[in-house]
């Protein structure tokens, strides 16, 4: 059993409780253990750093210092919230590379009786841990209810893959970790083009129309690609796309219905956990109709048939070859095809 420090962040306490619950529900299957950081404070989201430069580093420095104290042999701290992840890793990065800044931050931390040694912690997103440390093979071996027939759009949002201070993710524009993960669960993976676009962040609170437009784009394209569900890995993305979806519909006079779930919830379902323990049902856009298709009556697992290349083979000009590590268009569901 591998042990990690765990930084839940404010959202996972209430608004993203189902993210927290689903992570806890699958941790035994993944053979990982979490040591939660005690009495952590808010990471400041995108706001604290907007007003207080040094203060924001000190705010995060307190969390790093607490984590270092609790580290006890493990130096990897995993973070499920993308904003917390970015802020913590950014702070670690700047403290490690800028000795002057590190000095000032530790001077501030001293006022609270704390100290952080830059370089002591590896900050990693939970997706990174699940994908790279646990690995697809283990995940596949734990699947008892393959999500066969469920069309899933994978959505990363921004802060996990950009700016990616430690180069942990191979591609800031078109990643495919979640796609591989979802296909390991037996789901039908959609080549969702807006996978790394913005969920509108704090915009709903600042300028609702701007937010609605950004949310519309994402939901519209997911709908175009006939996604049954859109999975996410960030509480803010989930909140914006889920809770504001009805308002967005009202604003544009549309009628989209794209349920937004955490990827850990789908993992839990595939691992045979109950919808209830995974917190399913707390979303605004009800995921149950889509999920009922893969409930108890789910047909026995059979390998998904290969999706045909959208272009007819013998006519026309050949497509450029894509490197093997990326998924090519032909291996993922396109806009116009539903199996």
């Amino acid at each position, binding site marked *: 059993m591998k042990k990690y420090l765990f930084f839940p962040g404010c959202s996972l306490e209430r608004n993203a409780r189902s993210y927290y619950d689903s992570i806890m529900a699958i941790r035994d299957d993944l053979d990982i253990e979490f040591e939660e950081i005690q009495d952590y404070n808010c990471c400041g989201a995108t706001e604290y750093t907007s007003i207080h430069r040094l203060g924001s580093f000190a705010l995060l420095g307190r969390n790093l210092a607490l984590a270092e104290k609790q580290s006890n042999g493990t130096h990897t701290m995993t973070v499920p919230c993308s904003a917390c992840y970015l802020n913590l890793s950014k702070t670690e990065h700047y403290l490690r590379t800028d000795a002057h800044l590190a000095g000032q931050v530790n001077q501030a931390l001293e006022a609270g009786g704390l100290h952080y040694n830059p370089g002591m912690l590896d900050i990693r997103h939970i997706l990174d841990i699940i994908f790279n440390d646990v690995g697809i093979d283990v995940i596949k071996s734990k699947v008892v209810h393959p999500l066969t027939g469920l069309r899933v759009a994978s959505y990363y949002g921004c802060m996990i893959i950009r700016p990616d201070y430690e180069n942990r993710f191979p591609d800031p524009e078109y990643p495919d970790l979640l796609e591989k993960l979802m296909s390991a669960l037996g789901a039908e993976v959609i080549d969702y083009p807006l996978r790394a676009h913005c969920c509108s962040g704090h915009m709903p609170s600042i300028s609702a129309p701007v937010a609605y437009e950004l949310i519309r784009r994402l939901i519209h394209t997911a709908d*175009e690609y006939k996604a049954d569900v859109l999975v996410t890995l960030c509480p803010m993305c989930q909140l914006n796309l889920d809770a504001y979806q009805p308002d967005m519909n009202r604003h544009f006079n549309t009628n989209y219905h794209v349920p937004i779930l955490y990827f850990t919830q789908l993992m839990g379902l595939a691992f045979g956990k109950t919808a209830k323990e995974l917190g399913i049902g707390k979303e605004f856009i009800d995921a149950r109709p889509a999920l009922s298709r893969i409930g108890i009556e789910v047909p026995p697992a059979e390998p998904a048939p290969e999706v045909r290349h959208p272009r007819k083979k013998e006519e026309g000009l050949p497509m450029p070859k894509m490197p093997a590590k990326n998924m090519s268009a032909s291996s993922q569901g396109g806009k116009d095809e539903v199996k």
Partner: protein
Amino acid sequence: MAEQDNPQKSQERIGVYVCHCGSNIAGTVDVEEVHRWAAERLEQDGVVVARDYKFMCSSLGQELIERDIKNEGLTRVVVAACSPHLHEATFREATKQGGLNPYLCELVSIREQVSWVHSDKQKATEKAKAVVAGGVRRVIHNVPLEPMRVPIHPDVLIVGGGVTGIQAALELANGGKHVYLVERDSTIGGHMAQLDKTFPTLDCSACILTPRMVSAGNHRNITLLTWSEVTDVSGYVGNFTVTIRKKARYINTNLCTGCGVCSEKCPKKVIDDNFEAGLGYRKAVYTSFPQAVPKYPVIDVENCTYFLKGTCKACERFCPPGAIDFTQKDEFITVPVGNIILATGYQTFDPRRIPQYGYGRLANVFTSMEFERLSNSAGPTGGKVVLRDGKTTPRAVGIIHCVGSRDRKYNNYCSAICCMQSLKFAHIVKERTGADVYEFYIDMRTPGKSYDEFYQRNLEEGVLFVRGRVAEVTDAARLPGEEGKLIIQAEDTLIGKQRRIPVDMVILSTALEPRSDYEEVGKLFGISCSTDGWFIERHVKLDPVATMTEGVFIAGCAVGPKDVPASVSQGSAVAARVFQYIQQGEIALEPYRATIDQEKCSGCRICNDMCPFRAILFHEDLMVSEVNPALCQGCGTCVAACPAGAIAGSGFSDEQILAQIEGLMLIDQEQAQPVEAGL
């Protein structure tokens, strides 16, 4: 204390010359202070003249040295300027003109190793003083040397059969010199053979290139070695020995008539990633294009059914002269040449590295090379500009500049040809389809004869220019009119607004990059590459086709991105540069050689095995070793190895180096004990 090391004043009369190099040196080093210091502080060492001058390498600067030698009776010269690799020859020549042996001149670098790498003026000045003192102390121990002369083999090796290599080969061959033209591919012609039109005149590329290819192929002074690669180079200027691997073609070229029946009958169709840029097909036995030179096909063993499964041989069965030979093996030949020209060209940037442009994911995003083939009348669509479905004519086309160029994540440099190439594409699209064409550029760069006029012509033709680097290309429609289109999203920087422009086809003007094997090639021929990977010129402005390695020359896109006219100019230039050597008949080599003082030699033979050139022989009768100067290359390893100190290395003797070390440290002793030094 320093004086105690040198109690006697040196007998030599030394002139010290400190170059400003405009502000290149003078901007960071107080050159006047350096020459003043040298005059005062190094007087004991024999410095009788110390001057600074704006440009020592200018004729006036050189005359300064000549005049001082004559008028002041100088016996040694120290120039503090740029790297010896640049101007050592210049100042030695000036010294010679003044009447001294050229090897009594020492050039020390205060530009590449001082002013350009430091910014603190005071510290840089102190270091420059140390460097000058090192040079002065060293030059006292210089001895007159005579350069060694070696004959130059008149044959020339040219690597790369693109337009640059062809041009150079023809120039030399027409001048009566024999050329080995080595090309990795099965045909010469290079990238230019793939192009449809050439800007700005829009001549058909094949029409102007193929006659040259044919001339090169038929020329009695050109030995064409296609499907071949250089595997080894040894020797030095004038006397290289080059080993070339002739890869097996599996075609007996003595019998083959180039009729093409083999390709016709071959049942295996393969995507042609090379000549057709992945947009068309070829067979497993193929010639890249009908006008290929030589006309002989090759068998692609990775795809040939016979090589994969042991059956088929359709080509063999149908070949009229029976030229197919499945038993052929790679062949190695060794040729002596005097000079080598590298015209190895470039490769294009792989736009899959910029995922937001969608290449490889979105069918109708094309690279510039794909578009060349698409618009080429000999290409897969017969020159019809259509989408990847092979039939639909686009109604709107977006052309994106600087894909992989001018971007710190990929290549810092401007690829030089993309603006003009993009204008050419715009013109062709307009002419053949009437589609709306959008050009997305950061800066329009059209310096060249009639180039800007071509830009004007595109404006007249109604091409729409958007100044803004494209952010992304997507098929995710969100506005009316975007359905089923590719949407190009960019800031139109001239109005300061984000725009989304729906098009049917996107062409990426991809960067020109150094060949991926530039490092191995550089190593093989002993030349260096810039951090980008382009070969480095001896002098970027004044000697752009020579390299720091004597006898190895570079031309064309292997030196940096270039269009056709510039490549051809370099092809001619490099030929002229090589001619000069061949016509001289012989070349002077640095006379740095080892010699063994047989009186001191104890016959221990340690040095014998040290020499990789086997230049040291042992006289069993006398029990002493001796250096053969014809074989010695002057590395000095044996000099350092001799336990008896019996081996001397001319040009880099122990005395010279030890004195230089002392000189370099002189300034610190002065700072430590300024009073005692008694200036």
